């Protein structure tokens, strides 16, 4: 008896210790190359960066970090911000909201941080955005797609912008989900679709938006289920949707789950395509079990096919980063350039101080740039006005662009 009780106490204690051990972060402070021949007499300004640099989403995060680094280096070489050298400070959020919050607090406490590029996950942005907003630090995300981040929790009925400092170059799930539904229902003729999500802000939001539009277009939602973001065995979920006999599966979430889920669907005899959002577009998707003919939407047009992105791709290759720029590379590069451009307008020939922050926010809001992903400007919520999306399909083990289009409400 007492032994069992000891076990229980120990377990409780352990839970506490484990929670503590999760606090350690892997900090990796990257600083970019020198300013060349530029005048840097006024000191260094820091471009903050928050995204997962370790863990299962690090492939995306590292591509984002390198793309930011590239933009910062180019700005230094071109003396974009007179008198200042720019430095990149990259923080790893491990795709965890709590750690992202710590990273944001750390960046916000540094008076030289002018703005932050990131995050990757919508769930981490929910923590990071308010922390940065308090210090009037501009945040530009190249990857967050949850509508609530710019339009508030009641985005469908009464949109209201929660943080004036928050912008994004990625378009939202309010567009991406319906865009996917239009493709799957109208172009692929799928009428009985099972919808699964991982219960996170991004995945659940995307899946809800998809399901609503698919129903509007006349398709049936065969099943609406959730999996854990760290789950690996989906046999239970698959057994449930098997009974409903769907002709496609839509998954709101990311590739570490989507890949194995696709494989296990086929293993269970369900040879139906899986479709997802930008979160499943990654080079490892097929290795992890993603099948030929699976679909995904991604924001923007494929960088490889855009003339505007050629300069970015070439510069990225020339810089010799060890990781590919990944799904958000071009959008991140643009986000960083928006920030740098705004900064250069705000600082002009003067100096940067806390008093300049309001000006920087207005400058970013008024952005009008030709970036790697096309024309960049923001609407009154801080969302990009660029509503171009692309459907990808897996071919030869890789996501290849199928069609690019501009979203139009049905």
């Amino acid at each position, binding site marked *: 008896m007492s032994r069992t009780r000891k076990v229980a106490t120990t377990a409780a204690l352990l839970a506490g210790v484990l929670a503590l051990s999760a606090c350690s972060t892997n900090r990796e402070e990257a600083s970019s190359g020198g300013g060349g021949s530029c005048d840097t007499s006024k000191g260094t300004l820091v471009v903050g960066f928050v995204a997962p640099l370790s863990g299962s989403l690090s492939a995306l995060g590292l591509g984002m970090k390198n793309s930011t680094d590239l933009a910062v280096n180019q700005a230094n070489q071109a003396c974009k911000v007179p008198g200042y050298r720019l430095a990149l400070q990259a923080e790893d959020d491990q795709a965890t909201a709590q750690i992202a919050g710590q990273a944001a607090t750390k960046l916000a406490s540094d008076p030289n941080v002018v703005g932050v590029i990131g995050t990757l996950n919508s769930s981490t942005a929910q923590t990071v955005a308010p922390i940065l907003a308090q210090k009037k630090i501009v945040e530009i995300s190249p990857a967050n797609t949850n509508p609530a981040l710019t339009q508030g929790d009641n985005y469908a009925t009464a949109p209201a912008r929660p943080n004036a400092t928050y912008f994004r170059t990625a378009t939202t799930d309010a567009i991406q989900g319906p865009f996917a539904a239009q493709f799957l229902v109208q172009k692929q003729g799928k009428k009985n679709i099972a919808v699964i999500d991982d219960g996170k802000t991004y995945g659940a939001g995307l899946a809800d938006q998809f399901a609503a539009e698919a129903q509007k277009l006349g398709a049936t939602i065969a099943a609406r289920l959730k999996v854990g973001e760290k789950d690996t065995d989906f046999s239970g979920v698959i057994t449930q949707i098997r009974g409903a006999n769907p002709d496609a599966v839509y998954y709101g979430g990311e590739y570490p789950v989507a890949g194995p889920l696709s494989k296990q669907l086929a*293993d269970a005899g369900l040879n139906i395509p899986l479709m997802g959002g930008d979160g499943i577009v990654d080079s490892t998707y097929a290795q992890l079990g993603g099948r030929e003919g699976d679909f995904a939407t991604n924001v923007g047009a494929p960088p490889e096919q855009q003339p505007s992105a050629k300069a970015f791709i070439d510069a990225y290759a020339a810089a010799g980063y060890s990781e590919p720029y990944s799904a958000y590379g071009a959008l991140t590069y643009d986000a960083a350039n928006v920030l740098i451009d705004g900064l250069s307008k705000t600082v002009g020939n003067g100096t940067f101080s806390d008093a300049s922050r309001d000006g920087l926010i207005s400058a970013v809001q008024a952005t009008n740039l030709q970036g790697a992903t096309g024309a960049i400007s923001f609407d009154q919520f801080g969302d990009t006005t660029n509503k171009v999306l692309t459907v990808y399909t897996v071919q030869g083990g890789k996501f290849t662009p199928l069609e690019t289009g501009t979203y139009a409400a049905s």
Partner: protein
Amino acid sequence: MSIFLSQIANGLMFGSLIALIAIGYTMVYGIITLINFAHGEIFMVGAYGGLATLTYWVPTAVVARWYFALPIALVAGALVSMLVAVAMERFAYRPLRNAPRLAPLITALGVSVALQEAVRVFYPGATAAIPFPPLFIQGAFVIPIGDGVVIRYTGILLIVVSLGLAFGLERFVERTRLGRAMRATSQDRDTARLMGIDPDRVIVLTFAIGGALAGVAGVLYGSYLNNINIDMGFQNGIFAFTAAVLGGIGNIRGAVVGGLVIGLVRALGGQYLPGGTAYDYVWIFVVLIIVLVFRPQGFFGESERVRA
């Protein structure tokens, strides 16, 4: 009906995997009353060990034939896990043998973090999930009931190997001299020493057996799900620990039953209980709480203490 049977099959597959890991928890607890929280990591290391062997040391022509690749991977995984487990005992736990109980427990957590980070840093590409080759006949057979009950061959392999090893271990502990030495050490280490048993040897043996089983589980897991990541030990380790407590910690049969119960609760809870798969893990812990309230010693605790 076919859905019910499918979920039972799903539950048994997941459950027998958890059972195999749980045996390691329960054996170590039985002998030195330590909850070895690094045991989940031993399971993870086994999967990576098996994969490394197949990737780097075995010609691809051999890997392509499952009847060669499977035994090689199982043995390699078991060996790697066994070595890591024994080294862990020797260098992390033995120096703390007579320290207060909390010291080895905290050490176990440290070892767990260290192993996870070591694999992340040193195994190529381990920062993200890595694909694992299928090591058994691919595909599934369909039992023609209702819509059909799909059972994957790898799932059957998982059940057969897990339960076979568990049965073999139980016989070993019950029937052999070494097994008797293990039971004696677990009952009273000092008296066992007086009877001529070397407790250190028995403890090493316990870690070695628990580690080998976890290694086998790791390779089976990889082959069943076709990819592995460094979190897998933590996730499944928690379930295995729960299974061990549920079955009565210290009891091998209890660990197996606990594992199967967890698998079934997860599969059937996800299907039939409110909230569906979003709450399937919740039901596992609800069952744990209910069992601990009414039978704190677990299913097989105390009344028949066949502790190893």
